[in-house]
């Protein structure tokens, strides 16, 4: 393998990591604060992609509008879900929440099919990013760099939100004892709605970002959510840094793995997860249980 190949291969893996991170970050945020394993996160991502692609197709190519509007739509959907479903079950056992979010996967999946049909959508990369850049004498899609940049911005924004703002402190407080949090004067229902909407927003954003580089079709919800979970777990639940590193690991393992053992492509994510958890049973940046 030449150094150029390694470079190009790892850049491809990074772009993948970018998308995975954006998904995992939302999952980790929602899990961290609400203690809800949100299976429907992939569904929100799918809705983001469909809404984004539809906006672009309807406005004959206005990607920027989609980039703002679609995540907002998804955030609103997230708010709706939080208020109408999750809010009623925070105090239930975790598995009941799992049941609820799983049923949301079924519902949203079929609703998307009902609204958009089975047709897959495709939008083009916006013109200014449609170019290729030369790296090590090879053309590479500029859009990959856009994805990576977006992921980095998301990472920093979420980290700052979590550790540098009062909202972040409230969220971390909610992690352990939401009831007590209410009793010290924090409007917990509103906080939870906000957190879920932020998570949904990021998922929607990921959906729009990914849309130009692939086809938007049914089934991308579950396809992605499992991998995003793997990333979250590798990094350690509730840790943004972990999600970031986990995403990079998965991205690189996939990128190089397929060059050595193409037939194992299906399993790379899970092998990586098994190995990391085998070495560190609570993920790279997770907290060991007290």
């Amino acid at each position, binding site marked *: 393998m030449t150094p150029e190949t390694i470079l190009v291969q790892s850049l491809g893996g990074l772009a993948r990591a970018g998308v995975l991170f954006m998904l995992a970050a939302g999952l980790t945020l929602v899990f961290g604060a609400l203690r809800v394993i949100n299976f429907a996160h992939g569904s929100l991502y799918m809705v983001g992609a469909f809404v984004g692609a539809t906006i672009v197709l309807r406005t004959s190519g206005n990607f920027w509008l989609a980039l703002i509007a679609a995540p907002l739509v998804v955030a609103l959907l997230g708010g709706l879900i939080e208020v109408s479903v999750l809010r009623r079950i925070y105090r239930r*056992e975790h*598995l009941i929440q799992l*049941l609820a979010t799983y049923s949301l996967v079924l519902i949203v999946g079929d609703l998307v099919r009902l609204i958009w049909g089975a047709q897959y959508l495709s939008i083009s990369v916006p013109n200014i990013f449609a170019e290729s850049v030369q790296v090590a004498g090879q053309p590479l899609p500029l859009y990959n760099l856009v994805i990576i940049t977006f992921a980095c911005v998301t990472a920093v924004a979420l980290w700052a939100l979590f550790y540098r703002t009062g909202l972040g402190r409230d969220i971390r407080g909610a992690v352990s004892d939401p009831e007590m949090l209410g009793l010290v004067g924090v409007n917990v229902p509103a906080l939870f709605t906000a957190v879920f909407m932020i998570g949904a927003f990021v998922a929607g954003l990921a959906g729009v970002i990914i849309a130009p580089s692939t086809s938007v079709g049914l089934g991308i919800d579950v396809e992605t959510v499992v991998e995003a979970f793997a990333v979250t777990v590798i990094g350690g639940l509730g840790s943004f840094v972990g999600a970031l590193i986990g995403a990079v690991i998965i991205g690189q393992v996939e990128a190089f793995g397929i060059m050595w053992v193409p037939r194992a492509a299906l399993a790379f994510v899970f092998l990586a997860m098994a190995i990391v958890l085998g070495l560190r049973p609570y993920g790279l940046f997770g907290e060991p*249980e007290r």
Partner: protein
Amino acid sequence: MRTALRSQTTATPRSRIVLSAVAALIALALPLLLQESELLLVVEMLVLALWAVSYNLLLGYTGLVSFGHAAYYGVGAYTVALLWSKYGISPLIGLVASAAVTAIISFFTGLFCLRSVRLYFALLTLAVSQVMFTIVFEWYDFTGGDNGIHGIELPGFLSSAPNLYFFVLVVSVVCMLIIKAIVNSPFGGALLCIRENRQRAAFIGIDVKRYELIAFIISSTFSGIAGGLYAFYDRQVFAGLLNWTKSAEPVLVSLIGGMYSFFGPAVGAALFIFLNAFLTRYTTYSALALGALLLMLALVFPGGLAELASLARARLLRRGQHELETDETAAAQPTASERKP
């Protein structure tokens, strides 16, 4: 724990005998009452019921959430199928082998996965099962890849639907009764302690990891038998049997039926299969309908059907003896500590 309590307090032997007798009569009469396709639906229910009950030994009784139990179900099914297709071994022997094979595999996977706890454990089981899925999926020469193995031939006496039904009925009911005995044994009690409070369990002298491993193996073994029975039912196996989407089934079914009730998951299984079959008859959007039903269940009866049943029972009881039920219904309330990690 409500079952645990109940075993000491309610359900007098007589009412239980009557109940069992009625159930047995219905079970015997079913082949006369149902069409073949409906009878086979019942067979499917029995298979899933056994799987769910064995899964619930982990979920409801040990407090371990596995997201990868399809691996053992699938391995059980493939054991029957491969022994038949590669070596011409009778599926009956294959069924016994499926228990042995899953027991051995789950010993190693359990040992590995149990290094982690809680959600990490859950996702580690998922990872391990997906690796096993990939092996089955990719190993075309041996397993037939994603499309699997078809046309498994059963011994002659199982070639009629009623006979197949009786066979599956006997195997699954016997297995469930064995699991029930385990649940009510001191070992089962130790599992409950672990479920409630792993740390405290260790401090009363329970070797937590060891008990969890044994529970994992027992649960996986019976899941393997359930998978073996699936191969009897469908006479084909395919890689999807090991996939994570399949792993969701016992979880869902246990939650639908109620994970704190022993037969809850079995009832949940029956309902799940029925809904799946029933809804597809009327709509091609059955996932939407199923999702809506599940969501309602989660919102209104988070204790599953078992909660529904105990509410109904409480209402009946209230007429006669007001005192008795108070403990139980109080227990149904989630305690404040439940939400804490």
